């Protein structure tokens, strides 16, 4: 099946529309083992390394099944780099989805307009028809996936499923044919029902937040230092399956509402609202600490850090902020900071 690539620093791209158009949504991930040499010819070195990495891969050649790309508004990077993608990535269909920064009724109306425009452009470009019925079916399919992921996610808290294994599962779902994804998740769910907690070792239970992280190796690296990510608010994580889309009424309106109402990324306004979700998760999951990761140059997360630090201090929940370079070689340099945090908590 042909795919539509998704360049999205959050998870605000409505996969239901892509499915209803007859394509597989395929979220674009980076490769932290390559250098963005070609991308550096387009984007300055003081800009987000993760987005430069994505551009590098796209310039070198995307998966041959990808027939279009949707870039969804997140931070200034997604906004400004979209034009560069038009310049140097060889894909015919390119759409910039203006997922709104605000979360009020005017923003909702605008988002609905922009989703409808996406549908018009998909229909015109690929000569297809995206019906409400197809959208409703897609919503049902995505809701099954969301529900399965929510259930599987709980095994992290019970120390039956490691944070890294779960991260890998979510990534897989975000690039797979959704029927395959449902089958995969059902098998995994069955397996987990039988699985025993993986260790008696005294892991530090962590809530992971910050920039979206797509390198599972990074989660494994954290685990190797004595942590377990039992909950998160990331795009390759709970933000992807937080709730279900309402299956009644107008499907586009309900998809838009779902995205407006789900936990937000630092790119939204007011981003401080994130703390409401984070503090609730930290308390409900009784975590030992919170780790906030900022990809190098990730401005929205960098702005939020001092506020989160202050708020978690008020709650007396240990909090660690780390800037990470999207490059596996650099992870080792962070060992001391993580280890020190593990000892403190």
């Amino acid at each position, binding site marked *: 099946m042909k795919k539509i690539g998704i360049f999205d620093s959050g998870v605000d791209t409505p996969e239901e529309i892509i499915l209803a158009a007859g394509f597989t949504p395929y979220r674009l991930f980076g490769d932290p083992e390559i250098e963005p040499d070609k991308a550096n010819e387009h984007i300055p070195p003081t800009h987000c390394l993760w987005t430069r990495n994505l551009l590098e891969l796209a310039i070198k050649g995307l998966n041959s099944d990808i027939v279009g790309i949707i870039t969804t508004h997140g931070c200034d990077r997604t906004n400004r780099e979209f034009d*560069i993608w038009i310049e140097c990535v060889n894909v015919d269909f390119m759409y910039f989805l*203006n997922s709104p920064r605000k979360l009020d009724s005017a923003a909702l109306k605008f988002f609905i307009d*922009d989703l409808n425009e996406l549908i018009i452009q998909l229909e015109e470009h690929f000569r297809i028809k995206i019906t409400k019925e197809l959208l409703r079916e897609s919503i049902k399919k995505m809701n099954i996936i969301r529900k399965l992921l929510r259930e599987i996610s709980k095994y992290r808290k019970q120390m039956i499923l490691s944070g890294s294994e779960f991260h890998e599962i979510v990534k897989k779902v975000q690039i797979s044919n959704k029927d395959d994804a449902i089958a995969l998740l059902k098998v995994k769910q069955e397996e987990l029902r039988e699985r025993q907690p993986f260790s008696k070792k005294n892991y530090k239970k962590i809530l992971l937040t910050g920039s979206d992280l797509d390198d599972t190796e990074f989660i494994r690296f954290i685990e190797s230092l004595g942590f377990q990510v039992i909950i998160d608010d990331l795009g390759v994580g709970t933000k992807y399956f937080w709730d279900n889309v309402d299956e009644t009424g107008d499907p586009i309106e309900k998809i838009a509402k779902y995205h407006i109402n789900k936990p937000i990324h630092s790119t939204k306004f007011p981003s401080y609202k994130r703390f409401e979700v984070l503090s609730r998760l930290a308390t409900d999951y009784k975590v030992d600490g919170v780790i906030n990761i900022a990809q190098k140059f990730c401005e929205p997360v*960098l702005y939020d850090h001092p506020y989160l630090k202050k708020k978690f201090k008020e709650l007396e929940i240990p909090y660690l902020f780390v800037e990470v370079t999207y490059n596996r070689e650099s992870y080792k340099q962070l060992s001391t900071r993580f280890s020190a945090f593990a000892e403190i908590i």
Partner: protein
Amino acid sequence: MSKVEKTHNKMLNATQGLKNIMGRHFLAIEQAYRDGKPTAWATSGSPVEMLYAMDVQPMLPENSATVSAAQKFSQKFIEIAESQGFSYDLCSYFKTNIGAVESNAGMIEGGTRKPTFMLSTDVICDTHVNWFQVQAERMNVPHFTIDVPHVVSNTNNRQLNYFKKYISEQLYELVDFMEEVTGHEYNEEKARKVSENSWNLSMVWQDIYELRKNVPCPISTRDTFGGLFPLFCMPGLKAPIKLYKRMYKEAKERVDNGIGALEKEEFRLMFEGIPFWYNLKYFSKLEKYGAIIVYEPYTYAFSKYMNPNVTKEMVLNKPIEAMSELMMSFWYVYDLETRIKKFAETVKDWKIDGVLLHENMSCRPNSCGLYDLKKHLMEDYDIPCLVINADMNDPRKLNEVQVSNQIESFIEILRQRKKK
């Protein structure tokens, strides 16, 4: 005549009046506090005219941050912000403001007082919204933000229509917000008057820019970098219009007498980006090469009425609709395709020999796309370009020797081209 000739390598006499105009702005702020009048912080790109129309005194912390830099305080303030956990990589305007507020700096040092409310928009960057969110929370004041959809190279007219509708709706919400916070009512007649002043101010500024097309160019960045500020802070007032008219008149005299801002103009340059406010003298050093900057998209951009769809009649009669349209078509945030086209046209019209592109570490939205802009200008239009790395407000990020060497080599390239 000799009186005019003496103006070589100096700013216009009229530009000296800028100090008085800005002094008035600062006095108006003081007066507002004395009188208990509502005040607002506003980011650049936000509709400052609407504040004046609602009898709210605007304050622009970006303007204040440049004052800090010019007074050599910015580094100290930036380091205070960094000591509070704000990254080295974040915007230096923002950090200057954090440090200035933390230090209770006076206006002369770039300090800004606690406002009644804050108004931001993401039309230029995310930072504006994040910045005011940080400060609104710290100061415990209400904050209204305007979310402006991003126009990209393949945005179509159908999209522009609902983008505009979304912005308009927010501007009407802004009126409601201001009425609630200040108790003032929106007055259409006052809005019309403010809009007219804003339009007139911008038109004179654009006329001044037209004069810069002349060879030799009558005006240098000595006049435009500072001269920009009324467009930021005072759009809607009459006083700066008079100043701009005086600047225009004097520049026109220079043109009529064939006199340039530079004694011997050899190279005409364009400067893209925000200048180094802590080292404005740096730009005067170009003069030793016979080079003059004759166009800065940054200082031109703020004469906002450049969209042909926005007529004076529309500005006067439908100010909110006009503002919604303008917020999507701002020079500083043009999509890459439009940016390349506008640069090429400008180079031709202003007879520019080369383009300096400031890869500003504090303004990633502006520096994004700079490499492709350079590539297209050089390859498609044969326009020499040079990218220089620095920062608008953080002196630690300017390597003066390195940039000077780059510029020297660039000028040499321009010289060789002229010989051909």
